């Protein structure tokens, strides 16, 4: 669906945000794009969807150059940005104005989504809160029934019940012939949902991980010890003890905590990353 090859990009001359970045997004998964603030997650999504032009390298979207913004590519994806733009009109008018551009758009699914998220339909869109706007646009995005959904920080501004609804809707949405790319810095909102994860740091994709492979290679445990474990690949102080990441020597699968995994990956001289890389080599061998 999306192929980035040797991508270079920077907003200013001489300042590289991405250098030689490679990435593939294929059908059948909810890709979690993780990174620190300013790592370029939103920029990467804009490059993928043709909103930005790469300095060099290529960004292919459904087999075409993304920046060409070919209608056949655009009608197969829906991009929900972090900051949404809505005209001072109603949801009804928005659906009528934008819906026909998407061949599989379902007005019924859109209104069902608005109802599920309790989004008011009788107010001007500009009078709604950020969360209501986001929920309305998530409903619209899902109603478009596109092969690819690109969501930038979709849970920002959502209240607690809406986050749970979002998770369950996303789980229902993903099928073998679709893909969803979600960028977030609130990984706990999407725990149990995103797989694989992609971590962007210092201008490159430092990890592209299948969570099953992570569970095979690493164990994640909460230990009620007062001193930090010496043999851990990574540990974090949590109330009541330490969250510890070790090589998985037992073969028993533990659910990775995404926040801890992310911190372990982006830590300087990450031993977790080295372990994952060697486990991947062993698997390939």
């Amino acid at each position, binding site marked *: 669906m999306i192929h980035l090859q040797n991508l270079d990009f920077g907003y200013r001359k001489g300042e590289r945000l991405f250098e030689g970045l490679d990435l593939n997004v294929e059908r059948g998964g909810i890709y979690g794009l993780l990174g620190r603030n300013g790592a370029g997650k939103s920029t990467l999504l804009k490059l993928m969807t*043709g*909103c930005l032009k790469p300095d060099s390298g290529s960004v292919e979207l459904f087999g075409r150059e993304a920046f060409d913004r070919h209608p056949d590519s655009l009608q197969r994806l829906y991009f929900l*940005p972090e900051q949404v733009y809505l005209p001072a009109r109603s949801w009804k008018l928005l659906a009528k104005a934008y819906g026909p551009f998407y061949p599989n758009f379902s007005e019924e699914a859109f209104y069902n989504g608005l109802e599920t998220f309790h989004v008011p339909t009788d107010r001007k869109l500009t009078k709604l809160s950020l969360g209501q706007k986001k929920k309305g646009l998530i409903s619209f995005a899902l109603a478009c029934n596109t092969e690819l959904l690109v969501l930038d920080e979709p849970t920002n501004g959502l209240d607690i019940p809406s986050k749970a609804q979002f998770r369950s809707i996303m789980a229902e949405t993903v099928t073998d012939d679709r893909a969803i790319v979600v960028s977030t810095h609130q990984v706990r909102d999407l725990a149990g949902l995103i797989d694989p994860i992609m971590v962007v740091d210092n201008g490159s994709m430092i990890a592209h991980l299948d969570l099953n492979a992570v569970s095979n290679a690493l164990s994640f445990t909460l230990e009620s010890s007062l001193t930090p474990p010496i043999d851990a690949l990574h540990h974090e102080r949590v109330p009541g003890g330490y969250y510890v990441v070790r090589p998985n020597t037992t073969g028993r699968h533990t659910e990775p905590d995404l926040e801890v995994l992310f911190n372990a990956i982006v830590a300087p001289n990450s031993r977790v990353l080295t372990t994952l890389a060697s486990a991947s080599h062993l698997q390939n061998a």
Partner: protein
Amino acid sequence: MQPISVHRIWLLIRRNVMLYGQKLWAYPGPLLGIMFIVWSMSDKSYAEGSASNFLNSLYIVVLIVLGFYTSAHVLSEHKTADGRQSSLTVPASDAEKFIASWFYSGPLFMLVYTVAFFFLSWIMIGILGIFGIGGFPAFNPFEEVVLKNITFFFLVIQPAGLLAAIAFDRAVIPKAFGTLLAVALSLGALGILTFRIVYRDAFEGFFTQVGKLNVDGANFSVNTDSPFVLLLVLGLMLLAATYFKFQEKSV
């Protein structure tokens, strides 16, 4: 090669009308209403010919002002990064989006405005007739002076408005007006320079007299089409610049 589909262009025009058409329908009404009130309160003792001139002048002034405003605002989504993102990801090619914007702020605006003006002029004539003031000719959009100004609108005003809309994010109207003025001054300067080169002996700066052009009894043929050709070239250049600027647009 950018794909062009009539169906998608139609969807884009429909979208523009649905989401932003309120301005198109809303502004001509009140503005024309105010101007007709001024007209009805003014001296009605003029002859038939001057009443016709009044309507033509009114039509042309409002056409230029409102037309420029509409053209400069048709791509208003592009003023913010969020709006640009929303517009750029609409499933249509850049060429289709450009054509739809041109059609919306050109032919569609012209049609709505002209029909509104025509009917309002009849309403005003009717109202004036009730008060015993009659004998006014109805507005005729096919008069030569009106058609000339419509051509001017399509060749200069609308392309300049569209270019300003895509080139500037803030203070679009004054910057567009400035650009237009700069283009006009440059063209004027170029004309004067050419004149100075060709008619060196007759050129006396501000004191140049056209009568003096008949230097040494030579006869110069005058090409009456040249202003139109010049404006056509200018219009096409402005439209081409707008399109390429649009195509290069990113968030």
